Structures are given as structure tokens and as C-alpha cells.
């Protein structure tokens, strides 16, 4: 077990030292952190997501805070060199034009807007929506799944039929309808709406897991000590579903980015002049043959965000499982 991995001489402290054991017990927090940082994919995802967030926030700034990139995402300009990207990563001695950002690193669109600023704004919006959806849909799904799974009987039937009902409604249509009804209230409202239609898979997953955990002896033992149902769900059952919850969050975030793109494609999502990664792709869908960079920059960021989030989720799931003693090498 991991405890024996620490060299005896390393950290003799406290009562252990008195007993001559010389092995320091790690706290649970340290263990979770250790397992997380040993998960290479998770660390890579963390760096990737961190870099994307940092770039998106500092470049064009957020709200009143100005960024270091001088151009605005909505103002047009003269098209230089048919809007080709000026970003160059190939150094001069290898035949490139040297490492430089240039005037328009990601190029320009057909009306001369700076595509770097536009992509950064799209990334900001998509990230905000995705995280709101991740939190809302996981919260609602977990609540409904846990209550249905724990109490069984009539409340389970009612909640699960509600879930089925929400599943039968085409998500896109429903979200679109609610978005129209809500009007253009900005990206936070859009995130909430999407969250309220994407909780169904989480609810089903959580219910299934709760059904199995509620029969475990430690739950019966907790009941035998007179613990209330609310406390059993919150303290005993949900911590045992942390793996599923984290996976749900990551899946919900990935789904949200795609759903938001689809809604924007239909003109129901983010409204111009604001933009999002999905909206950018939609706006320039006909430009693939003439201005391919209008396509691959937002695509690159979508893939980057979704991959990073999934890797982080994988690492967190492994790190939070106290039964897992194996540390990834």
C-alpha cells in the first residue's frame, strides 16, 4: 500500500516517531492531489484548459478590464493579403518568416474583422455557457436521480417519468423554444436554459448508482443509527457517486458546447453582435474552400476545450476514489 512507499527516514514526526514507526500519514487532501498530479492526461488537460482560459481572458480582456490585444472583435477593417493569418511559428532559418504574431495572427474574415479577437470572444462565451450548463445540469440531474433512487416508490415513478418526458422532447427544439421565449437575455440565461434540458442522462446514471448504493450495508447501518434520509443521501450516498458526477460534468460540458453551436447555427443561441465558437463556425460555414482558417481556428479551440475537460474529469475521478491505492506512473 502507498503508506509503505514513503521511506522510513523521510518524515519521522508526531506520535508515529514516538512509536518508532517513522512513517508519516498523508492526509486525504494530499493523497487526492498526489494521485491527480500523477495522472499525466489530467495534468496535460489542466495545462491545456488553463492556457486557453488565460489566453481568452487576457487577450481581449473581460468586461471593463482591458486586454493586451489592441483590436476589437466587432470592428471591421481593411482586408490585408486576402485575410490570411499572419501568425508564424516557423523560425527564419528553417525557411519561415520568423516567430511573430503579425497584424492579424488568425487572419481576417470577409468584412475585415480581426479573427483572433473574434475567436477569443467566442471562446470566452462558449466557456461561460459550457460551465453554467455543466453545473446546472449536474445539479438538477443529481438531485432528481438521488431522490428517485433513494426513496423509490411513487416519487421514483414520478421523477423518472418526468425524466422520460424530458428525453422525448427534442432537446434542440425545446431549448430553442425556451431561448426564444426568454428572448435575448444574454449568455447566462442561455446557459441556464440549456442546463435545464440536458440533466436527463445524469439523473438516470445517478439513480442507477443510488439504487445499488442504498442497498449497501453501510447505508442500512447509517439508517440503524437513526440518520435522516437527507443526511444519508448527502453524506453517505452522493460521496460514493463522485466518480459518476464528475464524468457527468465533463460530458455535460462537451454536450453544451455542441448544443450551443447547434442552437447558434439555427440562429437561436448567442445573438449577434456577440458571438461564440459555434456561432463563428456557423457564420463562416461557406468559407471552407476560400478561407479555411475561418474554420479551423474555432474548431481547434472547441476540440482543445472538450479534450482538456474530459482529461481533467478522468484524473479527478481517479484521484477522489479513496479505495484506489494504485498511483499512476
Amino acid at each position: 500500500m502507498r503508506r509503505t512507499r514513503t521511506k522510513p527516514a523521510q518524515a519521522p514526526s508526531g506520535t508515529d516517531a514516538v512509536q518508532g514507526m517513522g512513517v508519516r500519514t498523508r492526509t486525504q487532501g494530499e493523497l487526492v492531489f498526489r494521485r491527480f498530479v500523477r495522472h499525466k492526461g489530467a495534468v496535460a488537460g489542466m495545462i491545456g484548459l488553463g492556457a486557453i482560459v488565460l489566453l481568452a481572458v487576457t487577450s481581449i480582456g473581460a468586461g471593463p478590464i482591458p486586454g493586451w490585444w489592441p483590436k476589437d472583435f466587432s470592428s471591421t477593417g481593411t482586408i490585408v493579403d486576402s485575410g490570411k493569418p499572419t501568425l508564424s511559428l516557423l523560425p527564419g532559418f528553417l525557411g519561415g518568416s520568423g516567430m511573430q504574431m503579425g497584424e492579424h495572427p488568425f487572419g481576417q474574415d470577409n468584412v475585415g474583422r480581426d479573427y483572433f479577437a473574434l475567436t477569443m470572444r467566442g471562446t470566452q462565451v462558449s466557456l461561460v455557457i459550457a460551465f453554467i450548463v455543466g453545473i446546472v445540469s449536474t445539479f438538477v440531474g443529481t438531485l432528481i436521480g438521488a431522490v428517485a433512487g433513494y426513496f423509490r416508490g411513487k416519487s421514483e415513478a414520478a421523477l423518472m417519468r418526468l425524466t422520460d418526458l424530458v428525453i422525448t422532447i427534442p432537446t434542440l427544439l425545446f431549448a430553442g423554444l425556451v431561448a426564444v421565449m426568454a428572448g435575448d437575455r444574454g449568455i447566462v440565461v442561455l446557459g441556464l436554459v440549456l442546463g435545464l434540458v440536458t440533466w436527463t442522462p445524469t439523473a438516470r446514471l445517478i439513480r442507477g448508482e443510488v439504487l445499488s448504493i442504498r442497498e449497501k450495508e453501510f447505508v442500512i447501518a447509517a439508517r440503524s443509527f437513526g440518520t435522516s434520509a437527507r443526511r444519508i443521501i448527502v453524506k453517505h450516498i452522493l460521496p460514493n457517486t463522485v466518480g459518476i458526477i464528475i464524468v457527468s460534468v465533463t460530458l455535460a460540458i462537451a454536450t453544451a458546447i455542441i448544443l450551443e453551436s447547434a442552437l447558434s447555427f439555427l440562429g437561436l443561441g448567442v445573438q449577434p453582435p456577440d458571438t461564440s465558437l459555434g456561432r463563428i463556425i456557423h457564420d463562416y460555414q461557406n468559407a471552407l474552400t476560400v478561407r479555411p482558417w475561418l474554420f479551423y481556428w474555432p474548431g481547434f479551440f472547441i476540440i482543445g476545450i472538450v479534450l482538456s475537460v474530459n482529461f481533467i474529469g478522468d484524473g479527478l475521478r481517479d484521484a477522489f476514489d479513496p479505495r484506489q491505492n494504485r498511483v499512476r506512473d
Partner: protein
Amino acid sequence: MSTNTEPANGSRVHAGKTLADSLPPSDEEILRVEDLTVEFPTDDGIVHAVRGVDYSVREREVLGIVGESGSGKSVSSMAIMGLLPGNARVHGSIRYRGTDLLRMREKEHRSLRGDKIAMIFQDPMTSLNPVQTIGDQLAEAVLSHHLVSRKQALARAKEMLDLVGIPRPEARLKSYPHEFSGGMRQRVMIAMAIINDPDLIIADEPTTALDVTVQAQILEKLLEVKDEVNAAILMITHDLGVIAGMAHRVLVMYAGRPVEIGNVDVVFNQPRMPYMAGLLGSLPHLDATEHERLRPIVGTPPSLINVPPGCPFSPRCPLADDSACVTTEPELAPVDADEHYAACHHWSRLAQVDDPTAYFRAESERSR
């Protein structure tokens, strides 16, 4: 590994508590179970898991309940806790200090559970939450019933861990169940059961999942804490040795009914129900000769879906005849000794011989 060793520091080694050393039971009845029946509807028919159980437990008394798997001993104790699955049909009455638990509202019942009536489960490996610290779980048992701060609850938890013999209790509060050995986890379960000073501890095969040396320590500890909190113990087991060592009285169950009840010494020395005689006869003896074979009770218990009329033990009983035994089920009735009851038409025939287990010896020799 250091954390998995049982406590070995000198101060905790004691001579071992036996039943004789502990406080004697008082006359006050704390639990009275009357005509308890439990049925489970299934696709194959109704399973009559418990078919009329009567017994009482006095203050500080240890009542052992023995029986084989499916004899209804666990189901009847889960009925006391109110933890049977929702489809169970429970009838009769279970009075705790005069109040009927079966007619209580769930909220009132819950306030008794863990406070006045506590339970220790069979498998300590699965009855602790793997993702919560021991300290949190112990504190939770306190916080569910008392309006105290978390800090006070943890102090109480530490005190209890110390009482059940966990070394360095302060540090172990922050440990997770997987960092404990089986014996230590069962100690934690005992600590959790007694943390609110219960009147009654239901121990459902508390040592079945443990190895024999640890078993003895746990049973001693149980007797020790029983006096500490003045609790009675309902000891459910299928180990006759455990009953002999630590119960005042014993209740023998067969096919969902009590078939014999009485003081441990009396029941073990003068069994008046052939089933109990057969159980005692099947125990291996230390003085047995090399080629002596074990003497099992031939046959299996009846199905609890279609319980045949007559004595449920009659198909396996060497004393059974073709009249009363197959037509009427015997009631639990007083036999020769004081406070000794048995459910057998022919108990007097067992009383006539010195060694009632002899009937089964003849039986198994015939079947050889």
C-alpha cells in the same frame, strides 16, 4: 503494516471479561416481542419468514438467538429496528418499554434507532462508509440524536474509540475505513453502537466475518461495553459456542418459530426440543476418537412458502411419530426446568434419557 495490527500495548491487555464478571440483569423488561409475524410476498407465493415469535429481554441481559440460515432470526431483529424492506408485512407487537414500535410513526422510530436501540452488523468490511472518515461517521451517530456541536461529537467519538481499544484514537478519527483491519472496524462499529448509551444492542452475527482470535476479543469487548452503558444485548448467531460463552438465556429458532427458550445452562445440558439436541449432538468433541464421524442432523428445513402442517422439524426428527407430529404444530410450552419452554410433543421422552443427543447418534449411524 502498522495500522493493521490489533492493539498490543501492555495497558490494554486484560484478563478477559466473562459473563460471570458482568453486572447481573435486572427484572425490568425493556423489550417484549409478542406474536411477531413477518411475511414477504414473492412471485412464488408468500414467504412466512417469521411465524409467531414471543420473547422478552430484561435490562442488562444477554439473550442469544440461535438458528440456521433462514430460520428468521435476522428478519425478526430487523423488524425491531424497522429496517425491513417496504414489501414486508409485519404483524404482532414489539414493545420497547411499553411503547409498540410497530405502531410508531417512522419519525419517532427513527429517533429511537441508534439512540435507545443500536445495532452491530455482521460484516464490518461493508457496514462503514468507505468515503467518510471514522470520526465523521461516529460524530454523525451523535449528531443525529443530540443537539451538540461537531467538536463535542468528535470528542465523544474519541472517547468511544478509546473505550473499545483503538490505539491513538485522536489520530484515528481522521482515518478512513480501509485503513483499519476487520477486527478494528468491528470495534468501530461497537463504538458507534454504544456512542449514545443505548438500552439495547442488537448484534447480528457480530463475529461471523472475523477470525477466531479476533472473535474472542470482540466478544469480550462487547461484554465490557455492555456494563459501561448498562445495555442489554440481543445476540444473533449460529455459533453455539458464542452463546454458551456470553448469553444468559438462549432462544432457539427453527423455520420461523421459536422452538426452545431458557437459561443457557439448562438448554445446553437438558435440551427438550430434538432440534436443539441434534445441534448439540452435531458439535465435534475434543475427546473424539480418530475415526469418529461428525453427526449432522439429516435433511433440510422446510420451505417457508408452503409450511407443512404439524411440527416443521418432524421430517428430520428421530422422535417423530405419525400422529401428533404430522398433524399439529406444537406450541411453546413449559417443560421440566424453571423458565424453560420447548415446542415438542415428546419432550418428556428426551427428559427420560441422560444424554438426549444419543437419539441423533443412532440416527446418523443408521444412515451410514
